[in-house]
């Protein structure tokens, strides 16, 4: 076992899509919030997974969801646990109850900490960070 401190990589940690989650990531790249719905009972689920926990169907489809939601809670990240985020800190990460019925966690820009409160209406936007990967972010109305 190593006793040498391993410095975190300075590159942004990138998602490694799985066969189950690929349509979600493809959707973000195309400027859409694609959410997985059960093809049998119709319930939405996030994060993507093979089986519907409500009816156990393994058939599903991804549908574009509205980009609106309300603030559920938040944190303000000051300490950069990954060095990549050192330049961005402090940054707000909002956990949002999407009107589509799932939650999305993403950075919230263009608003100060003291304006945050549960229920605040927010909009999802898209931030391309590489040719393949686009990440979600939130802005206030």
């Amino acid at each position, binding site marked *: 076992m190593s006793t040498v401190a391993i410095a975190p990589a300075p590159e942004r940690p990138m998602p490694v899509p799985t066969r189950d989650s690929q349509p979600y990531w493809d959707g973000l790249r195309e400027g859409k919030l694609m959410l997985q719905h059960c093809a049998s009972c119709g319930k939405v689920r996030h994060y993507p997974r093979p089986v519907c926990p409500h009816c156990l169907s393994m058939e599903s489809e991804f549908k574009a969801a509205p980009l609106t939601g309300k603030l559920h809670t*938040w*944190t303000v*990240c000051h300490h950069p646990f*990954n060095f990549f985020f050192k330049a961005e800190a402090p940054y707000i990460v909002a956990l949002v109850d999407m009107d589509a019925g799932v939650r999305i966690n993403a950075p919230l820009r263009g608003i100060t900490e003291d304006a945050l409160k549960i229920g605040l209406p927010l909009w999802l936007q898209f931030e391309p960070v590489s040719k393949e990967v686009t990440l979600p972010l939130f802005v206030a109305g």
Partner: protein
Amino acid sequence: MAHALRDKAAISGIGETAYTRGTAKSGLALQLEASLKAIEDAGLSPRDIDGVVPYFPGGGIAEDFIANLGLPDLTLSLFVPMGGATCVAAIQSAAMAVATGVCKNVLISVGRTGYSGARVSTRLQQFPQFALAAEFEAPIGMFAPAQLYAQGARRHMELYGTTPRHMAEVAVTTRRHAILNGNVVMNKPLTVEEHHASRMISDPFRLFDCSLESDGGAAIIVSAADRARDLRKPLVTVMGVAEGHPESPASIAQRPDLLDFGLVKAAQRGYAMAGVGPKDIDVAEVYDCFTFTVIRQLEILGFCKEGEGGPFVMEGRIGLGGALPINTHGGLLSQGHVVGLNHVIELTRQLRREAGKAQVEDAEVGLVTGYGDMGDGSLAILRRAA
């Protein structure tokens, strides 16, 4: 009818290394050093150990214990991958093993180079339990527990009015207890003002709301209670023990109620098995990865009502001499981070009346919790046998 496992297992041996920030030893060496001490404390020899539950991932595996300690005939090797809920949940697995006769003496152990080796955000990359966080949250700047758990703490503050002052009280009280212990990383007094002035890590968590990244090892032996009676130390039995897994166990973000920890289920089962309630608890060692995590668990454990954990910790209630002394060893916040096995060790000491300056007078029944990964929970209720 009494639960089939009630009082069938005992914590027969405890061992820990020095808790430090900085060591030349490997995590495995720390784990084995603590294991040898626990075996010695029980009055056993390594050849008596026939079950191992090492903390995983990270540290030794069954092969290491056989190769280093010369275990002649291991009959059980288990992992309980529940992060900080592992050590207390492992007592349930060990109790099942000794009550059924599969094992006589099970060794539960942790060795960690959390300061001198890989730090928290790097170490967690190897946890399958963090796979969803790695895919969906690390890219947007959330991965460390301080960040992932902060959103739940913020929600509690907004809903119930919990304040940084309440969180500071947990940090300051725990530090006061640590100073009495001696084998601790943080041995200087901490004031509320110093807590409030410490740097922000992930709001609302400041530095002194966060547990330590430290080096150390800890181990316990779980033996069949009828056999443990003949061992060296006063008998401490497992009255109740349970693990609990929350809804949406790998993603806090998707959990309908962020404050619904696995402990909600574990506490119900653990109390029922033990046949006791919160009023019967003399001392509690509550998993303290963050100050807020203690506040919320005190609510779940029924020591106060939902949302009243903040006010509950005030006015000396959780300090030695108070109505419910907690973390009498200094916890993960001030003693050291060995994933809460130090909490089990301290509770055993309290019930043996070996806790020195931190001894809770006439401690008969105590409780210890674990909290880990994205909110897994575990609970053990131990008692000093008559």
